[in-house]
């Protein structure tokens, strides 16, 4: 039987292929959170759970994850970014039943996830809500409103994952807004924090299990462009598309050939 690591490796290759074929950038922030998306969807989430991608620029990683579950087809992925597609560069409204909200403007996801979690609680419904955010996204003030609300309402069916890759659109997060110590900030709001390596599949699954009596924050230290040597921790791969030589090299590295 195929190992889960192998399933993730194939998804990583499929993500690179999709972005290459569509001539689309934004790959770095997709590669930094793919391991979390895959682990959540394959090993953590159950039917009654919901997932919200607050960092909408990682739409490609979400689409590929849904593809790996058989909820999107190869044909669907080939339409990524093309005219007439349902798979726009950032998740679109009513693009897919597993995508509850269009995202792409940062600082909305945590409040939306809080509403979905509160709605479940008020109606006595089971199920957890997972929200994946970026680190640069914490520059948006609305997130701090949301954090206050999540803690005050004790939304224990909500788990927040932060893809802390340390890079944003036009600089490192340290240069732009000095977010650290981020874990201390979350703790100061009254939320327990688990800090993990966001590329350690086992650690991700364990952290999600520990967060089941949340609300918890999983602060995942990640590498932008993870899995491709020339992309890792390099800011330009927030935006740039791949050329053919770069794509071939990236595929060799990811596929281990």
């Amino acid at each position, binding site marked *: 039987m195929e190992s889960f690591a192998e399933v993730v490796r194939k998804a990583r290759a499929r993500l690179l292929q999709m972005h290459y074929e569509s001539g689309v950038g934004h790959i770095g922030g997709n590669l930094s959170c793919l391991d979390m998306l895959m682990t959540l969807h394959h090993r953590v989430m159950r039917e009654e759970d919901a997932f919200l991608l607050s960092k909408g620029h990682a739409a490609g990683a979400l689409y590929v994850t849904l593809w790996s579950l058989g909820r999107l087809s190869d044909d669907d992925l080939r339409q990524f970014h093309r005219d007439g597609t349902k798979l726009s560069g950032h998740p679109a*409204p*009513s693009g897919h039943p597993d995508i*509850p*909200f*269009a995202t792409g*403007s940062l*600082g*909305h996801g945590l*409040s*939306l*996830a*809080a*509403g*979905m*979690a*509160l*709605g*479940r609680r*008020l*109606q006595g*419904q089971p199920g957890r809500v997972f929200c994946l955010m970026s680190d640069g996204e914490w520059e948006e*003030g*609305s997130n701090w*409103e*949301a954090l*206050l*609300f999540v803690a*005050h*309402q004790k939304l224990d069916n909500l788990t927040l994952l932060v893809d802390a890759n340390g890079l944003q659109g036009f600089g490192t997060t340290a240069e732009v807004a000095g977010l650290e110590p981020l874990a201390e900030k979350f703790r100061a709001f009254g939320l327990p924090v688990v800090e993990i390596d966001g590329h350690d599949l086992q650690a991700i699954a364990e952290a999600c299990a520990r967060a089941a009596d949340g609300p918890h924050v999983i602060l995942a230290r990640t590498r932008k462009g993870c899995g491709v040597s020339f992309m890792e921790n390099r800011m330009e791969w927030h935006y740039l598309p791949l050329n053919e030589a770069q794509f071939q090299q990236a595929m060799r590295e990811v596929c281990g050939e």
Partner: protein
Amino acid sequence: MRNVLCETLTGLAADDPRFVFLTGDLGFQALEPLREAAGPRFLNAGVAEQNMVSVAAGLARAGLRPWVYSIAPFLYARPYEQIRNDVCLHDLPVKLVGNGGGYAYGVMGGTHHALEDYGALLCLPEMRAFIPAFASDVPILIRRLADFDHPAYLRLGRCELPAEFALPPYAPWRRLLRGEGPTLVAVGPLAGGLLAALSALPASRRPAFWIVTELPITAAALPTEFLDDLRRSRHLYVVEEHVAQGSAGQMLAHALLEPGEAPARFTHRCARGYISGRYGSQGFHRRECGLDAESILRDL
């Protein structure tokens, strides 16, 4: 109108299992009965309107019917992107209730006025605006909105209906007075204040006085009797506490031009900000903008 809102929502909280109410820390000495009745479905979301609107979208996505309440400008202007992206792009049944339409907060100052609320909101997909003119409109509109499957904005003010006036039954367009003067259309509670003054006029000068409570205005929704009045008077006179851009007056002009019903004259009295740079009661600002009964009588 706020007390009627509280009474009606309290009833709704008991009847509708989908009911949930969020306030941006507003409602002191007004919404306490609702808070008692709704229990955990009454949430004071605090002074954090962006979060409140997105939470409401999430609640709607989970199958509930959220009502979101604040002073009007804090509800439509601060969280505009949340209304746009989270509510309207998904056509979710979130009901925004803004208290203090137009200059209703008077000398509290410009930050508390809602002069471009329905214009700004009606640019968004699926959004509808409801502007009760009288307190008796409020329960009717709330009951309707409870079953309305789309985003909506309810703009509240203070009822100014003269005690002796017998209102016709609720309709989106209502003729309050017949007359041989211009065809006058009013939006919102200022209609009440105009009624007393206009009723006293002789029929030859008295306008045919209409109020409209549901926006946007479309050509298809214009009542035949209204068009008959307009064809006779050839003068359309619109009064509203909202700036000209995005106003009911502009919508109405558009709706009349398309089918070739343009009148010979169009007069639009609307909010014009803070002309003198001084502040005062709602009446003060209305007078500055020519929205008071005296100024309108002079025009007629």
